[in-house]
């Protein structure tokens, strides 16, 4: 396993939506899309909205199903796994150890305190079947991350459902960065953040890059993009 083995390899990916409820309307969002991401790279997906940028991220995470083509993700043990053919179990395992996804909207789980939302990835089981950390250590680590992202301690025991958009976004980021995975997919990570917190997130992304994490991101703010991206891919409407 060398530094030239990609973390993500999308080859000839097509994504078509068939809306059966709207008279079988067909939406071709991606056609023949390819992308290769190496460790330490941060690839920016740019282009006008509706061009399929979020779709690319969701395909790479297995949240969307590709209509054609292959999507290879490097697993924790170095294998290139084609997630278009993988079983749900394999994808769940990849998500635990190989690829992370920071979405625009935090899927809020009722009643779980913010600190526990952030600590959760540390309580998952490692390859030996035991949790990576005990609950107290995990919460202590989560607390450090919440501090770094300037979430006031008074909010730590509350479920994020009532938080502002920006606060939810920071919870999301803390949860995704607390346990780094080799491949990270970022969908507008600074969208609701003020300059101070945006700067913190930029730091986090750069630090991850330096550690060899491969990143694919959508950054609407050109300054943020310039600060973190090593290269850019411009998405255009698929040619008919």
């Amino acid at each position, binding site marked *: 396993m060398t530094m030239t083995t990609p973390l993500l390899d999308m080859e000839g990916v097509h994504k078509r939506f068939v809306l059966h409820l709207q008279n079988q309307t067909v939406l071709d969002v991606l056609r023949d899309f390819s992308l290769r991401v190496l460790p330490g790279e941060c690839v920016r997906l740019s282009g006008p909205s509706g061009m399929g940028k979020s779709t690319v991220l*969701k395909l790479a995470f297995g949240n969307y199903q590709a209509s054609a083509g292959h999507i290879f993700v490097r697993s924790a043990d170095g294998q290139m796994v084609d997630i278009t053919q993988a079983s749900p179990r394999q994808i769940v395992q990849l998500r635990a150890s190989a690829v992370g996804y920071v979405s625009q909207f935090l899927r809020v789980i009722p009643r779980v305190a913010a600190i526990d939302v952030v600590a959760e990835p540390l309580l998952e089981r490692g390859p030996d079947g035991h949790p990576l950390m005990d609950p107290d250590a995990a919460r202590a680590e989560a607390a450090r991350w919440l501090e770094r992202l300037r979430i006031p301690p008074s909010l730590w025991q509350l479920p994020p459902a009532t938080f502002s958009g920006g606060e939810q976004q920071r919870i999301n980021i803390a949860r995704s960065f607390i346990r780094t995975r080799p491949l990270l997919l970022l969908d507008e990570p600074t969208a609701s953040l003020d300059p101070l917190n945006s700067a913190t997130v930029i730091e986090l992304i750069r630090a991850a890059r330096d550690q060899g994490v491969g990143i694919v991101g959508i950054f609407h703010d050109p300054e943020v993009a310039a600060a973190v991206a090593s290269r850019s891919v411009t998405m255009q409407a698929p040619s008919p």
Partner: protein
Amino acid sequence: MSQAPLLRVRDLRCAYGAREVVRGISFDLWPGEVLAVVGESGSGKSTLLNAVAARHAPTAGTVEFAVRQGSDGAGDLADIYAMTEAQRRLLARTDWGFVHQNAADGLRMNVSAGANVSERLMALGQRHYGRLRAQASDWLERVEIDPTRIDDRPDTFSGGMRQRLQIARNLITAPRLVFMDEPTSGLDVSVQARLLDMLRMLTRQMQLAAIVVTHDLAVARLLAQRMVVMQGGYAVESGLTDQVLDDPQHPYTQLLVSSVLPP
């Protein structure tokens, strides 16, 4: 990832007379996986659950379970309908759990909460009253029931408490597979949320495999990594839960997903 599956279902068919209600369902389930079976009334999802849980014999197909052998837990898949009834009943009491939609169906309403929770242990031969009571008390706390209510009968409990009691009663023997039939239907929303949270936490902590039948997509999303959508006895779509819900392929799945009112 060379683990063998815990449960293997192949070509399962169930019929009531000439009317087929489950038409050729197949799936594998691995330890620690939660599978949601989603569908509307009449989809066959409850019949499927009962057939897999050995409560209602199918008309065709096989259900195999990796029966625990020895202390390491590994075992070959065995056809549950080829077992004797005694073996099936033992399995149902120890390695399996069944959470009913209506808690009264899964509890003894005329004995105390403590007796309900420790019954399985007594059935397995435990004969020390003090220890039985301590374990029951432990589990009541785990499901967030005040342990001082250990001697109260379930008919004095609220719906949510009864459901949590049912869960404790089932999980005390650390089963590897739990069947749940609409575990949160009929409960108030806040009570549902609390229960779902608890189920989510317990399935993770105890590495439970579970099959959860529900008509509620939100329950599927919260609890299950995998999902099967049933319509008219067929499995019309299956896969990763978030994929099926966010990128539904089949027309019926798209209909289901679009029909849910966002709060």
